[in-house]
């Protein structure tokens, strides 16, 4: 297991460099000059242009810029935003908890509903529940996410008035956010109704964000379960006289979890990279929106640094998934 971990960690190195190179190159390949965009419609004098260029390091050759960027990374410096003049890493960690909170809620909803639904559908294959569920999952999977979000807002926020339309917490509450997670901070703040307000703000975006992963997890669980249910060891489990709940929920599900864990891992990766549409629609101050804004502003340092942070997180999620494989099915540990 240890050598497996070390080998997996070693593959981090080339991936990491690849990501730095790609993020560095792509943002520079985009047309548009960051200084001109910074200057806005009034333009900038040639003298001032060169001054800014030197200040931001754009007068250096590209390879030199890249080396400086790499050197910065190893000192824990991802650069400074041209626009806000704040270190990229600070901005990232200020916004990331919001995305993390939303993503975790979404994935928990998707797992808690998706796995049992998939198991039940597989056990009652072809029956009414199975068909209803699979059709619903297909609809959920194919639905445009912004349309679904707007629909929910129209019904639950404007129509029924049950949930707020946007933001993370009601404006009437104000408190320090030491953890960055609104659910935890609102509890710590100990203000009447703050926690409930945070929860009610989280519900709709979580449901919207959970929809696609939920559909994928349910369908994947069902197909993995169907495969496992026909295995010889399932007959052994039944021959022991085990109750159906144990047969399906323990003996089958554990074997069926490998592909399910894979899709969960992929979903978590995508969610953490920023749910751009969901964050935009619900004005959720997360990293998805931050990245998109930075690309529009050609804020090289933010895009580079943000991409790198996101890629690192996705790599860590993937590593966790690989370790989980080994824990679930010991046969994989050898490989």
């Amino acid at each position, binding site marked *: 297991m240890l050598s497996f971990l070390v080998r997996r960690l070693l593959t981090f190195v080339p991936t990491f460099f690849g990501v730095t190179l790609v993020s560095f190159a792509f943002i520079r390949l985009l047309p548009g000059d960051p200084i001109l965009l910074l200057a806005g419609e009034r333009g900038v004098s040639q003298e001032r242009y060169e001054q800014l260029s030197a200040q931001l390091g754009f007068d250096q050759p590209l390879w030199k810029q890249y080396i400086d960027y790499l050197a910065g990374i190893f000192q824990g410096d991802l650069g400074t935003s041209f626009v806000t003049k704040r270190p990229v890493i600070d901005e990232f960690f200020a916004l990331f908890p919001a995305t993390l909170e939303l993503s975790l809620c979404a994935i928990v909803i998707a797992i808690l509903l998706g796995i049992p639904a998939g198991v039940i559908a597989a056990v009652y294959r072809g029956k009414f529940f199975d068909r209803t569920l699979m059709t619903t999952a297909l609809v959920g999977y194919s639905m445009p996410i912004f349309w679904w979000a707007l629909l929910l807002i129209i019904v639950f926020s404007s129509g029924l008035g049950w949930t707020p339309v946007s933001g993370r917490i009601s404006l009437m509450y104000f408190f320090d956010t030491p953890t960055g997670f609104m659910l935890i901070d609102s509890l710590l703040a100990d203000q009447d109704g703050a926690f409930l307000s945070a929860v009610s703000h989280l519900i709709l975006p979580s449901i919207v964000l959970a929809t696609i992963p939920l559909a994928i997890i349910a369908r994947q669980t069902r197909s993995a379960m169907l495969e496992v249910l026909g*295995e*010889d*060891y399932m*007959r*052994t*489990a*039944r*021959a*022991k*006289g*085990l*109750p159906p709940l144990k047969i399906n929920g323990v*003996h089958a599900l*554990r*074997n069926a979890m490998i592909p399910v864990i894979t899709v969960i891992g992929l979903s978590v990766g995508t969610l953490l990279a920023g749910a751009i549409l969901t964050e935009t629609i619900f004005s959720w101050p997360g990293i998805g929106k931050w990245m998109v804004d930075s690309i529009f502003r050609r804020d090289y340092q933010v895009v580079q640094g943000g991409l790198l942070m996101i890629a690192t997180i996705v790599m860590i999620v993937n590593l966790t998934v690989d370790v989980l494989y080994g824990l*679930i*099915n*010991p*046969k994989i540990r050898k490989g």
Partner: protein
Amino acid sequence: MALLEIRNLSVEFETVSGAFRAVDGIDISVDRGDLMAIVGESGSGKSVSMLAVMGLLPWTATITADRMEFNGHDLRTLSGRARRKIIGRDLSMIFQEPMSSLNPCFTVGYQIRETLRLHTSLDRKARQTRAIELMEQVGIPAPEKRLSAFPHQMSGGMSQRAMIAMALACEPKLLIADEPTTALDVTIQAQILELLTDLQDRTGMALILITHDMGVVAETVKRVAVQYAGQKVEEQQVEALFDDPHHPYTAALLSALPERSQDRFLPTIPGVVPGQFDRPQGCLFSPRCQFADARCRAVQPQKASAELGYALCHYPLLHGEPQGKEASA
């Protein structure tokens, strides 16, 4: 009263192309401590009939029987919950593919202890002790270490021994072994068979051995039932069967054994077992039978007397000669 009593058991599978009768009116009776074999080629319904007893058939199967009793329980009317109390405890089964019959995600120890936890009131420590004892009983060296092994770390023979340990955990009254040695190599086969008969002898449980191998039958059991195309065609004590088979199918099977062959060429049975669409009208074996006549092809035979091994044949053999042919002619 017999431990397992089955009268006129039939199993039909629903398929896309209509119902398929895999087991056709089988009678089986097993006493306590009995040691019998069910022999037949692939598709003769031997596994299916035993899976029906265990209640392990898929929902596409329809089971009908005049009588199906185990240890005083009517298996036909038993609820799922009541059946689960019996199977794995008094009635257990081991399967053909030991390597794939153990769950790859759990240790062997967990899988053995799970049966104990389900059916006995032993505490955690006692279960572990019992598991070690079982592993010793089935001849697995270093049982404590092996209990924490995963199935992929064990050989086929070891896995089958672990399966046997699991099946024996609650001292069953009847063990059904469904081709337990088919997937194993020859030397291991002999070891496993010896282990099974030895355990049967020591514990006094009844054992039904399902096999297609006449050689295994000769060395292992006391009584043999021969199945063909879902029907039981003959049942005899093992010596008598080898000495004087009464059904032409049994006779043909025996003469196809290399050990008994006298000629240069090994005799074979021409043709194949009838499938779903080519079931003969009369005797199911008639298309392949060297003694068959018009009556065989048109009329379904009745069971012969006990002296003639209940042979399902119009003209059961006696010392290799078909009987009663002149009378009907």
